[in-house]
């Protein structure tokens, strides 16, 4: 194992040398020939579609769960619903998303022919919902208790206080975290190749399986993810700055 590491710089050097030498050929083989680049663009479309819809489901589900749980915490009501939510959170946050994806594909939608994009959206949406719920619950708890008391002291009931006073502030506070959830999901969907969905990562796999050269397809896939993550992070920073500077 350790001699392997010693060896490794050496071999990496050789590999990089070979690459620079071969680069035009390799580039042609992996991307141009037989329009192989299409695997990447098609895959990217799938990846983005799955991510966008999964985030949507995740946010809706997350808000519902968070509101149920906070209401239970504050008022002691909704015991049954709260219990269901707790089980949901425990199971989803306690198992790998890959295993969830496989179960949803092979077991839940076992003998139904259903669009795989739909399966992935459902799986990642349900998964994301559990994490979003905790983000939003954190957001609700981080609102100063004084805000709640001020609302109640005017005469608003629990629901009115939530709707007029608490949730608008929560939403503003968690917006960056929700943006971040989008980034997390974008990366997480890379495992959807497991259910033979041709997402971006799988697109690279297909090219690899045809050209038998791992470097360029993997690098291209990595760069595309990196590009989108960096763009999104940038947008998120701008958003956060705006939110911080706004007076309300």
């Amino acid at each position, binding site marked *: 194992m350790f001699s392997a590491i010693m060896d490794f710089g050496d071999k990496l050097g050789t590999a990089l040398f070979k690459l620079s030498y071969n680069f035009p050929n390799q580039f042609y083989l992996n991307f141009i020939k037989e329009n192989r680049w299409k695997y990447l663009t098609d895959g990217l479309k799938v990846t983005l579609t799955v991510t966008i819809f999964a985030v949507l489901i995740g946010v809706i589900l997350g808000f519902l769960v968070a509101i149920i749980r906070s209401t239970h915490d504050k008022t002691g009501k909704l015991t049954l619903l709260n219990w269901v939510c707790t089980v949901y959170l425990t199971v989803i946050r306690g198992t790998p998303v890959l295993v969830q994806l496989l179960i949803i594909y092979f077991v839940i939608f076992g003998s139904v022919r259903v669009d795989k994009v739909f399966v992935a959206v459902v799986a990642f949406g349900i998964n994301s919902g559990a994490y979003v719920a905790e983000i939003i619950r954190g957001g609700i708890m981080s609102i100063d208790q004084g805000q709640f*008391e001020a609302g109640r*002291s*005017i*005469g608003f*009931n629990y629901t*009115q206080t939530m709707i*007029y006073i608490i949730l608008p502030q929560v939403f503003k506070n968690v917006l960056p975290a929700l943006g971040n959830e989008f980034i997390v999901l974008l990366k997480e969907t890379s495992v959807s190749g497991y259910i033979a969905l041709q997402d971006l990562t799988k697109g690279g796999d297909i090219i690899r399986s045809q050209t038998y050269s791992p470097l360029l397809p993997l690098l291209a896939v990595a760069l595309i993810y990196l590009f989108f993550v960096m763009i999104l992070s940038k947008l998120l920073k701008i958003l956060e700055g705006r939110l911080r500077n706004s007076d*309300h």
Partner: protein
Amino acid sequence: MTTSEEIKEKSPLISVKDLEKHFTDVHALNGVSVDIYRGDVVFVVGPSGSGKSTFLRCLNRLEEPTSGTILFEGINITDKKCDINKHRQKMGMVFQQFNLFPHMTVMRNLTIGPMKLQHKTKEEAESYAHELLKRVGLETRADAYPNQLSGGQKQRIAIVRALCMRPDVMLFDEPTSALDPEMVGEVLEVMRDLAEDKMTMVVVTHEMAFAKEIATKVLFMAEGQILETGEGREFFENPKTERLKTFLEKVL
């Protein structure tokens, strides 16, 4: 014979009996009874942790009393069946930390209650809010957001927010202790005004000089009980219990 108006005048606005409040491991209120009449300016003083805030917060059930009764305008509001939200509209509350709604303009802070709860039109709510803003000297800040205000301005807005609901009593919990010393005066000024207008007030504070000046009644609390009650100036100048004497020596 007394007319019903006279009875109303003479019966207390708030009547607290044997109020107890237990927190998990603290006995915060240990049998508090007191009557507060219309026009009273009641100051609650006492050492830290003596239960002053808890007492005040029980009055509008922000804190749920463990036992005891509170009659407000003749109605037992500790009864679980009463709709406390209705009564809270008549009991304005001002917090140490202001607790303005940061996502709304000043005007929205002032009008959301009257509009959503008392079904005032926007015009009605805004014109009354404007009137009150003028009284506290902040008529130009209606479109500002809370973060754009100084502490003293925030607290004056918080007072106006409570007043916009046209309450019958105003509860203050250390309204000036989160303020820079230079801003204390402007808030006390507004409170003095209110007292002169005969607003019923219950004020928890450490500002002894102010209490001495405007209180009609002072309650001294220690360890969850009211140890001594007095009439304004008298209370400070002739403390009866040893406990109150030591306390006054420390804080004056």
